[in-house]
C-alpha cells in the first residue's frame, strides 16, 4: 500500500497521559452537541447515528487504517452482530446487553474464517474479495428465511425498558452510542501504543520488510481483523436495537454500511485515532442535511454530493481533515 510519510509512523510516541488527555478532550467536545440538543429528537437521532458510525469507522480503522488492509466486507460482521443480537433477544429473551458478546464472538469467528484465505491477497485484490464476500453474504441472508426473516427482514417489537435496550427517550440511545464510541476510541489509543499496533503499521508500510524483520504478518493481520470485527459486531448489535428493523438490503448495502465505515475514516483521517470521530461528526449530519434539503426534489441528490465528496477527498484530502489540520498547524507553527 501507500508508503506513509515519515511523520505518520515515526512520530515520537507521546506519553500515555498526553494521549489520554487529547482523546478525553475530543470525547468531551463531541458530547457537547448532545448536551445542547438532548431534548430535540431530530438532532439526537442524527447524533446517535454519528456516534455509532464513528465507533464503527474507528473499528474499521484498526485493520483498514493501521493495518492497511482495505476491507469492504465489514458489513458482514456488522450484519452478523445485528442478526445475532436480535435472534438471541427474540428467541431466548437474552438481554442485548449480554447478547452483544456472543454476537461479537460470532462476528470474530466468521471474520477469521474468511480472512485466513483472503489475507493472501494484497491491496485492491483484498478489497475485491471482501466486497464479493459481502455480496455473497447478502444473498445468503436473503435466502435463509428462518434466521434472518429473508427479504422481509426482522422486526424487533417496541418494548421499552433498560433491560431490553429499547428506550422511549431518544437521548438515551445517543448516550449509549457515545459510550460505545468512547470504548472503541480508547481501544485504538491502546492499540496505537501496543505491540500489535506497531506490527500492523509495519505491515501497512511494507509487508515484505515487516516479515523480514521477524513479524508474523498473517498473525498480526488476523489479530487486527479479530479486534476490528469484534467491535464491529457489537456495533451491529447496538444498531439492531436502535433501528429495530433488520433487512438484508439495508444491512449489506455497500454505500450505507461497508464502504461508509471506510469513507468516514478517510474524511476524518485514515490511520489516526481521532479521524473516525471527526469524519462521522462531519459526514452523518451533512448527509442528513442534504437528504432533507435536496433528497426530496432530486431523488438520490444527497448521494450525488456524497459521491463527489468521496472523489474529491481521494484526490485532495488524502490524510483527511485531521491530516490537513495538522499540516496547516505545522506550517503555521514553523512560520513563527
Amino acid at each position, binding site marked *: 500500500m501507500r508508503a506513509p510519510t515519515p511523520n505518520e509512523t515515526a512520530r515520537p510516541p507521546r506519553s500515555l497521559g498526553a494521549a489520554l488527555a487529547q482523546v478525553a478532550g475530543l470525547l468531551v467536545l463531541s458530547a457537547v452537541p448532545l448536551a445542547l440538543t438532548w431534548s430535540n429528537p431530530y438532532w439526537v437521532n442524527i447524533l446517535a447515528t454519528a456516534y455509532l458510525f464513528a465507533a464503527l469507522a474507528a473499528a474499521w480503522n484498526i485493520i483498514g487504517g493501521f493495518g492497511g488492509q482495505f476491507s469492504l466486507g465489514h458489513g458482514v460482521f456488522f450484519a452478523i452482530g445485528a442478526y445475532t443480537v436480535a435472534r438471541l433477544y427474540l428467541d431466548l429473551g437474552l438481554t442485548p446487553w449480554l447478547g452483544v458478546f456472543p454476537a461479537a464472538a460470532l462476528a470474530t469467528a466468521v471474520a477469521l474464517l474468511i480472512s485466513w*484465505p483472503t489475507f493472501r491477497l*494484497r*491491496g485492491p485484490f483484498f478489497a475485491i474479495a471482501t*466486497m*464479493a464476500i459481502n455480496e455473497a453474504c447478502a444473498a445468503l441472508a436473503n435466502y435463509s428465511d428462518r434466521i434472518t426473516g429473508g427479504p422481509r427482514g426482522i422486526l424487533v417489537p417496541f418494548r421499552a425498558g433498560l433491560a431490553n435496550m429499547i428506550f422511549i427517550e431518544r437521548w438515551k440511545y445517543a448516550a449509549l452510542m457515545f459510550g460505545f464510541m468512547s470504548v472503541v476510541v480508547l481501544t485504538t489509543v491502546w492499540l496505537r501504543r501496543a505491540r500489535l499496533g506497531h506490527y500492523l503499521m509495519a505491515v501497512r508500510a511494507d509487508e515484505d520488510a515487516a516479515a523480514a524483520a521477524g513479524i508474523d504478518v498473517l498473525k498480526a493481520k488476523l489479530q487486527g481483523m479479530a479486534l476490528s470485527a469484534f467491535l464491529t459486531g457489537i456495533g451491529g448489535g447496538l444498531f439492531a436495537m436502535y433501528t429495530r428493523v433488520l433487512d438484508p438490503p439495508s444491512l449489506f448495502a455497500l454505500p450505507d454500511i461497508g464502504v461508509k465505515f471506510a469513507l468516514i475514516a478517510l474524511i476524518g483521517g485514515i490511520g489516526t485515532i481521532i479521524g473516525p470521530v471527526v469524519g462521522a461528526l462531519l459526514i452523518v449530519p451533512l448527509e442528513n442535511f442534504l437528504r432533507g434539503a435536496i433528497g426530496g426534489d432530486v*431523488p438520490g441528490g444527497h*448521494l450525488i454530493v456524497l459521491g463527489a465528496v468521496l472523489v474529491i477527498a481521494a484526490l485532495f484530502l488524502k490524510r483527511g481533515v485531521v491530516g490537513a489540520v495538522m499540516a496547516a498547524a505545522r506550517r503555521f507553527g514553523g512560520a513563527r
Partner: protein
Amino acid sequence: MQTFLDILLSGILLGGIYSLVSIGLNLIFGVVRIVNFAQGELVMLAMYATYFCFAKFGIGPYYAVFLVAPLMFGLGLVVQRLILQPLQNEPMMQIFATFGLLILFENAVLAITRGEGYSLAGSYSRAVIDIFGLKASLSRVIVFLAATAIAAALMLFLQRTMAGKAIRAVIQDRQSARLMGINVARTYLLTFALGCALAGVAGALLAPIYTLSPYIGGNFILAAFAVVVLGGLGSVPGAYLGGLAVGLMESFAGYYVDPALKQAIWFIIFVAVLVLRPSGLMGQAGAEEVGLREQS
C-alpha cells in the same frame, strides 16, 4: 436431455454477457492496475445513452454502438486524466475514487430519470432464432458473438500491433517497459479509455436485453470481478473463458441447486480460486503481487 441442452445454451449466452462486460474491466485491471469499481456503472451509462439514441433519434442499439463506444472512450480519457492518473501510486485512494464515481453515476442517472424504468424491449428482444432445435433470443446470441469477436480482435491487437505490444510490456513489468522507451502514462490513458469504450459496446448491446435501472451496474460488477479473478489478471482469453465459465456455473446452479443461491456460487468460485491460485487460471503467476510491490 432437452432441459440440459437448454440450460447449457442459456449458460453460454449468459456467459457471453459476462465475458463482454469483463473484458474491458480486466484490461483496465491488468494494465493500469486500477480496480475500477465503477465499470458496471459505465455499462449502465452506455445503456442509457443507447436508449436515448433510440428514443430521441430513432437510432437502433446496433447502430448506436458506433456512437456510444467513442463517447465512452472520451469519458474514459477524462476520468483517467483528471481523477485516476493523479492517484497512480495510491491504490487505497483509487478504490475511494472509483467507488465515489460509482455512487455519483448511479445517483446522477437516478436523479435525471427519477427512477423510472426504461426498456428498449420490443422488436429487439423478442426475436428468437433456432440453434439446432434450441430456441435462443437473438439479442443474446448477438452479445455472445460480439464478445467472441471482441476477444479475438483484442488478442490480435495485443499480439500484433505496436500499441498492443506496449500494453503487454506494461502488464509484465512497468518499470522495464519505461526503460524500453514506452510512454507508460500514455499507455494507461489509452488502455483505460479502451476499457471504457468496451463498457460502451457492452452497454449498447445489452440495452435491448435488460430493463434499464440506475442500479443495473451492480448486476454485472461482481460477476465481472469473479471473472477477472477466475480468468487471470490482464488476460483477454482468461476474461472470455472465465465469463463463459461463470455464466455456465450460474445457469446450472440456478437450475439444479436453487435460483436464490446462484450468487453464493460466485463466492465459492472466488474463495476456491483465491486459495488455490490467486493469479487466476490463465494469469501470470505472481502477477497479483508484482504491481503492488512496485507501487509501495
